[in-house]
């Protein structure tokens, strides 16, 4: 029999207690945090009552980073130390970053796989900058909800590739957030929209943000949100419109290409203001201070602006066509078109979308908040606050995954728009006698040539037993989880010899790098670090015990004989004991032992619930 446990207040979570979970929209321009309270999702405001947090971080010497509105205001005067639109830098390499003329930061050494921006406050990576934004939102949520967060759902553009997703998850870890799920932004919007309307049908979500564009086609049926296809451009958004307008101002005002950073920031700032004015106005005045402090004044009409941004808006229509094609649908099959993202306020965007889909898009939900609200609903469910909720999101992988083969060609292993989670294996062989190593290059993208796709990782498979060419069977398995994140494993099959594998992410961070950053961010206070790692393990232990206790109460007798039950109780007691102490490794070990002991039980339970789901269905059929 299990002993009764007496725990200190706050040390173990009481069953059925509401877990604090949030949805976070980590946007290019602005970020938001939302939560579900009394069944309603709402975005959380800061002390000043502001919901939108500008995604801007300023680094200064000897001071902590400045995040949000104050940093945004400093951007024009302190451009080199103020990072804007960091989302566009996530998971990108130096070469890609240098192409961005208006975000010409100074970058540190070329040798690091992850680019670092030089600031007065030190060199920072995009992941660290994003983590600062997430920390502010986490603090805001904890202050507002009055407790520690159980976890967060963080949204990413559907068209984000693996490197960009991984970078986002790293940023969350760095900010001390437990990521319940990475959720695609259009899917989040569909949740907010679909739960609101409670109607079945096929909807298209057109999501044009500050720096990314996504189009997703979803089928809503009885609470299941099934993404049929997604397409987009992870480097196209309102920022690009600002740049087009800024270039026009430069030409009009006679500002040369060698303008300094401060001048460029002023240009972008003014361009953005002009763009926003022209949402309602037909014409607006434009004013820019040149480097010699003289001022240029002019005006821009909406018609003129439309010409400047025409090609950008047009670039969003081809992905719409492709998504429909991939979903196997025609325009008439779409029952609703939902607009998401601040850039859908631009009148020309609405016009083009309406013309393409042949119906007026829905603009009645706040395009800035809808993604965070949808993420909050999902977070509430994932945290376990709604055990009876039938909502289910079935998402897809946005870009094909493949491997490099002979001649620099890419062999696709998983096609785009495949429902996740998904796994696929591919067999390879050696091409030389006695070959003992093989290098494997993982790529993402639709093009045929390696150089046109994104390089995700390079693997070395070593210790292949020497054989004649073509005799070895090397099976490479791709697994994409529900976050859309890829893991790759390789194994030599014919000999049964376990082969070693080395992973080196091309642009992402390695685990050791994340840990190093975590350590650095703790101000070198190692006790804090240890305390935090201990806390994480304790939470993991609680989660395991809580889940198991609930399961045992429900069906322990059904699936376990006395001996098995006694074994589980014993392991649970030991875990409970070590959980109260501060030995991280001991807790890890006790969790592993407990899991091993109840492995059979967990499997029987899951099979049982599948059987219930299937047999319940059969009864229904008999009755009807």
């Amino acid at each position, binding site marked *: 029999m299990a002993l009764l446990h007496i725990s200190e207040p706050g040390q173990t979570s009481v069953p059925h207690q509401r877990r604090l979970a949030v949805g976070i929209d980590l946007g290019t321009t602005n970020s938001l945090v939302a939560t579900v309270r009394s069944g309603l999702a709402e975005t959380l405001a800061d002390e000043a009552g502001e919901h939108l947090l500008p995604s801007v971080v300023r680094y200064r010497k000897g001071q902590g980073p400045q995040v949000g509105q104050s940093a945004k205001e400093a951007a024009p005067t302190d451009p080199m130390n103020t990072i804007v639109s960091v989302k566009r830098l996530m998971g990108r390499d130096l070469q890609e970053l240098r192409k961005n003329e208006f975000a010409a930061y100074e970058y540190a050494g070329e040798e690091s796989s992850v680019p670092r921006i030089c600031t007065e406050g030190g060199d920072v990576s995009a992941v660290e900058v994003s983590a600062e934004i997430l920390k502010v939102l986490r603090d805001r949520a904890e202050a507002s909800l009055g407790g520690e967060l159980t976890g967060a759902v963080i949204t990413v553009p559907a068209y984000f590739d693996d490197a960009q997703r991984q970078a986002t998850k790293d940023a969350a870890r760095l900010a001390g957030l437990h990521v319940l799920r990475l959720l695609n932004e259009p899917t989040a919007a569909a949740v907010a929209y679909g739960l609101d309307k409670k109607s079945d049908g096929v909807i298209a979500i057109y999501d044009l943000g500050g720096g990314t564009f996504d189009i997703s086609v979803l089928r809503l049926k009885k609470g*299941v949100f099934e993404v049929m296809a997604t397409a987009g451009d992870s480097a196209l958004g309102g920022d690009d419109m600002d740049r087009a307008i800024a270039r026009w101002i430069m030409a009009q005002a006679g500002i040369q290409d060698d303008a300094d950073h401060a001048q460029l920031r002023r240009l972008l700032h003014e361009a953005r203001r002009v763009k926003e004015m022209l949402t309602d106005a037909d014409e607006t005045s434009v004013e820019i201070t040149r480097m010699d402090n003289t001022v240029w004044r002019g005006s821009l009409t909406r018609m003129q602006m439309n010409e400047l941004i025409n090609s950008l808006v047009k670039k969003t229509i081809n992905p719409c066509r492709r998504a429909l094609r991939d979903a196997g649908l025609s325009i008439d099959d779409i029952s609703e078109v939902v607009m998401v993202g601040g850039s859908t306020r631009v009148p020309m965007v609405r016009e083009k979308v309406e013309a393409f889909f042949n119906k007026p898009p829905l603009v009645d939900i706040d395009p800035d908040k809808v993604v965070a609200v949808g993420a909050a609903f*999902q977070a509430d469910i994932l945290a376990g606050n709604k055990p009876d909720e039938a909502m289910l999101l079935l998402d897809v992988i946005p870009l094909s995954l493949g491997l490099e083969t002979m001649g620099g060609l890419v062999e696709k292993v998983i096609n785009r728009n495949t429902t996740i989670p998904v796994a696929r294996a591919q067999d390879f062989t050696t091409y030389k006698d006695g070959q003992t190593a093989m290098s494997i290059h993982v790529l993402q993208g639709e093009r045929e040539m390696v150089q046109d796709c994104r390089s995700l990782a390079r693997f070395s498979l070593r210790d292949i037993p020497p054989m004649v060419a073509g005799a070895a069977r090397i099976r490479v398995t791709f697994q994409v989880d529900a976050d859309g994140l890829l893991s790759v494993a390789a194994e030599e099959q014919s000999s049964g010899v376990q082969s070693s594998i080395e992973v080196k992410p091309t642009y992402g961070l390695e685990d050791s790098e994340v840990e190093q950053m975590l350590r650095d961010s703790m101000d070198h206070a190692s006790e804090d670090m240890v305390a935090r790692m201990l806390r994480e393990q304790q939470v993991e232990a609680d989660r395991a015990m809580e*889940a198991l206790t609930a399961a045992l109460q429900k069906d322990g007798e059904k699936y376990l004989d006395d001996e098995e039950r006694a074994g589980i109780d014993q392991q649970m007691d030991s875990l409970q004991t070590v959980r109260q102490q501060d030995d991280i490794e001991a807790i890890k070990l006790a969790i592993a032992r407990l899991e091993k002991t109840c492995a059979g039980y967990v499997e029987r339970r899951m099979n049982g619930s599948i059987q219930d789901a299937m047999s319940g269905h059969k009864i229904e059929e008999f009755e009807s």
Partner: protein
Amino acid sequence: MPFDLTSNYFSIFGMPVSYTVDAGFLMQRYRELLQTVHPDRFASASGQERRLSLQYSTHINEALRVLKDPLERARYILELKGMQWDDEQTTLSDPGFLMQQMDLRESLSEVREQSDPLEAIAEIISSVSSLMQDNIHVLEGLLQSDKPEDLETAKTRVRKMQFINKMKMEAETLEATLEDEL
């Protein structure tokens, strides 16, 4: 019926092994299964349950992919009936079929030179699709049989379908490219 990762894809959905599949029923069963095992149902569960849920969901998704696709489904049924595939070693020896494929390939390469390329490509896609349908229809009959000669014939059909399917995908890619260029 216990859930078993080694059991065949049809029995996962509680369906008999048959080339003719009720797509509505399949999707309904699929949704019910995933409602039960999807990782979202285990986001706050133990690491062990999360792994199991990922494994099951992955398997069910793969089963659905195979059963939904007429070509994959035919290959799979033939495998269940004990047929082996050694893709690279066998060649098709059907001059009529090969000629037809060469003709289609030639028209595909000439699409851009046509006065209305989009109409030309639509025509090719339509004839390739109807070739596909013809084969699906024949397979519906053949795959009910367990006679070795019928299964051999089915296997040849499936291999032809693989050629046709590849052509169809190339044609669709070209159509997408042409539309994007507009």
